């Protein structure tokens, strides 16, 4: 590949090239291969990869866009590569983090020692919309509140850091697997030469994890995946995972509560359900306990859950631990529960509920990213440097009206990785979302949904906002 000047900028860590423009050691093979291939050949590979997504129907739904019920997620064919050593750091950091977060959830719905000891303010926890008072006093199998976690990790020139934890219904793992399948078959020799760690057993690990959470020891517990239905943005993933783990893909109307148990309506009558891998928000799980207008959930489900007759994974109420304000306290949780320093640091976060942080945020809007604490998926966010003055002013009014609803963070110089744009390589900002599974033990398959902001200069990697995906190769060594 010739004819393009890859734009290196020392403000950003480039995943492939060092500051001197030479490829990093673990990218050498890829660089050699890219140099040897004409751009037109690479474009053909890109086209094949993207076409395979369309042919497989690997899609997501963009809300509010009636035409986009089956939008194909954009994919870039150039893999991102991490060394075994880099992955070890990420793995250790994630294992530590999910341990602390599970302890935190058990604590705040139990004795609340962390609040009594003044580590985190009571009103921040109990005033959080995701705090579910209905979960107080509940116990969960193996103290696992969060069985599946998707943590967003970014890299800056200072190294890796955690951008956010997704502890409710994290999505994206199907794209991780789809990216791998598509890129692997189109870069066959290169893939083989790299000795990439396998991620193909994710479904098996997920099934083991869920089975270990069944209320009673059973060789073959009945596991179902509860989806809001075909119009949900992640329906493809729900269907995909149901197949991977051999579970029935159910909607609320397929389940019913009777005599303290939850049953699934099968062709042969009702069958008792042991574990529900729910991909539906807390609000909609049970209209008798949460939103009474929910048609997606199962009346009585929480009753069965409280009796310990069915396990919900993730447990309701886990959102209190991934709230954008509570996030700021995760390093303190790690120190408090584990007596360790965080392996992966947080991004510096200003809580607008604190007067000094509010003042700082309002004074520096043009340099900050401001997020609503209750939003996700890149919605409701202001990227200060990219916003127009009137947008910033309107946002500032919102912050002044309800400061506790906002946090701000510095605009992070997200690392960049080469992407194929047309027939040339150009750097684009990336993050990664590995998936942590926690049953009796914690297991992390060595891979991630590596998200990429395909629009030049954009820092927003969410697929709902124009982002796409890349395959992430974790090397054996």
């Amino acid at each position, binding site marked *: 590949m010739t004819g393009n000047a890859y734009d290196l900028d020392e403000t950003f860590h480039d995943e492939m090239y060092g500051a001197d423009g030479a490829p990093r050691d673990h990218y050498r093979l890829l660089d050699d291969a890219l140099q040897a291939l004409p751009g037109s050949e690479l474009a053909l590979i890109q086209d094949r990869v993207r076409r395979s997504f369309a042919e497989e*129907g690997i899609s997501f739904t963009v809300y509010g866009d009636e035409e986009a019920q089956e939008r194909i997620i954009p994919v870039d064919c150039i893999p991102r590569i991490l060394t075994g050593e880099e992955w070890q750091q990420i793995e250790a950091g994630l294992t530590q983090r999910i341990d602390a977060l599970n302890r935190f959830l058990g604590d705040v719905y139990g004795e609340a020692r962390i609040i009594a000891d003044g580590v985190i303010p009571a009103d921040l926890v109990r005033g959080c919309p995701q705090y579910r008072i209905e979960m107080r006093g509940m116990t969960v199998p193996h103290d696992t509140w969060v069985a599946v976690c998707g943590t967003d990790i970014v890299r800056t020139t200072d190294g890796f850091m955690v951008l956010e934890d997704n502890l409710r219904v994290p999505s994206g793992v199907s794209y991780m697997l789809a990216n791998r399948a598509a890129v692997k078959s189109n870069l066959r020799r290169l893939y083989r030469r790299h000795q990439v760690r396998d991620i193909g057993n994710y479904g098996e690990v997920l099934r083991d994890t869920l089975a270990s959470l069944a209320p009673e020891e059973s060789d073959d517990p009945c596991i179902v995946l509860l989806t809001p239905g075909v119009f949900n943005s992640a329906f493809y993933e729900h269907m995909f995972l149901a197949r991977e783990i051999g579970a029935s893909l159910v909607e609320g109307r397929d389940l019913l509560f009777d005599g303290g148990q939850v049953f699934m309506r099968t062709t042969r009558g009702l069958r008792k359900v042991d574990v529900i891998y729910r991909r539906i928000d807390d609000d909609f799980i049970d209209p008798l306990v949460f939103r009474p207008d929910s048609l997606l959930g199962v009346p009585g489900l929480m009753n069965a859950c409280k009796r310990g007759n069915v396990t919900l994974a993730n447990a309701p109420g886990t959102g209190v631990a991934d709230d954008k304000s509570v996030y700021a306290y995760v390093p303190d949780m790690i120190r408090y529960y584990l007596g360790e320093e965080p392996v992966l640091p947080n991004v510096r976060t200003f809580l607008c509920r604190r007067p000094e942080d509010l003042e700082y945020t309002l004074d520096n809007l043009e340099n900050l990213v401001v997020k609503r604490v209750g939003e996700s998926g890149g919605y409701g966010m202001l990227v200060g440097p990219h916003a127009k003055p009137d947008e910033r002013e309107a946002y500032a009014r919102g912050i002044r009206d309800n400061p506790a609803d906002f946090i701000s963070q510095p605009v992070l110089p997200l690392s960049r990785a080469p992407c194929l744009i047309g027939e040339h390589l150009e750097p684009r900002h990336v993050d990664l979302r590995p998936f942590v599974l926690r049953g009796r033990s914690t297991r992390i398959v060595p891979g991630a949904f590596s998200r990429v902001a395909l629009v030049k200069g954009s820092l927003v990697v969410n697929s709902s906002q124009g982002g796409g995906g890349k395959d992430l190769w974790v090397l054996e060594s």
Partner: protein
Amino acid sequence: MLARSAQGLYWMSRYLERSEFIARLLELQTRALVDRPLAEIHFGWRRIYGSLGISPPAGDLEADHSDDYALADSYTLAGDLTFEPSNPNSMRSCFAAGRENARQMRHCISSGMWMNLNLAWLDIKNLDIQDIWAREPEAFYAGMVRTIKTFDGFAAATMYRDEGYQFLRLGAFIERIQLMTALVTTHCRVPEGAGDHEWTSLLRACQALDAFEGVHGMERKPERILALVIADPLLQGSLLGSLTSAGSCLDALGTEAGSPDTAAAARRLVGRMTARVVYDWTDSTDRLRLLDEIAREARDLHGLVTGAWFEYATGERQA
């Protein structure tokens, strides 16, 4: 198996069977447009609309138009029956509904089945009648028939023989029973009556021409044609063949159902329908009435299958 998944598979194959049926009739019809007389062309359109139980978009067809009118009409009618999104009986609407069921039930079917459907969908989803009309439309319809036949082949070759497979087949057979009875009834009732060519085209529509020639040679007597497509047990696609196959699906499913009594009633009904064809067809003095009764029973059969396995009252039974 989750009842809704079974229902999804059942409807998927019903829609695809219907889509293939329409494609098959349209292939014959577009071939006829090349060289057949106007009366025969009108016969063909009436037979298609009659089989589907619907009317043409502009009302009854006029048989006294000139060639130009007939071709213009045919363009409109083919568009209505092939791609019209507001027509739930258009070939693409049925294919889309089958494919949508498959999309929602992808975890219950093999990847080969899905890919076969999805690739065809990507090809046809944005087409319009003008895209196929100018160049060999019959090849397009033949391609659709092949796609759905390939889907059936993938299903036969790759699906685990569990309940899901039985519901998938059962849906196709019940749809075929309904379409076959409607096609033959309409064929025999078209006022101007069917000529030799129309009878041959009925054999083609039932995918029975080769079998007929193998058994009876070239002498295409209506009586023999009807005997083959209705009551010949050796023809897989005959009405009797479809009833027998539906019966074997119900045998495989047994009475272990959400509503066992309804499941047993479904099996008995198929038995009665089969007996009517086996024992009553040959000597019947009013065959159209017999077909009407079988058509009504086919609708009842659908209701019993739904009530036995998909939408039974809860509390009846726990697995």
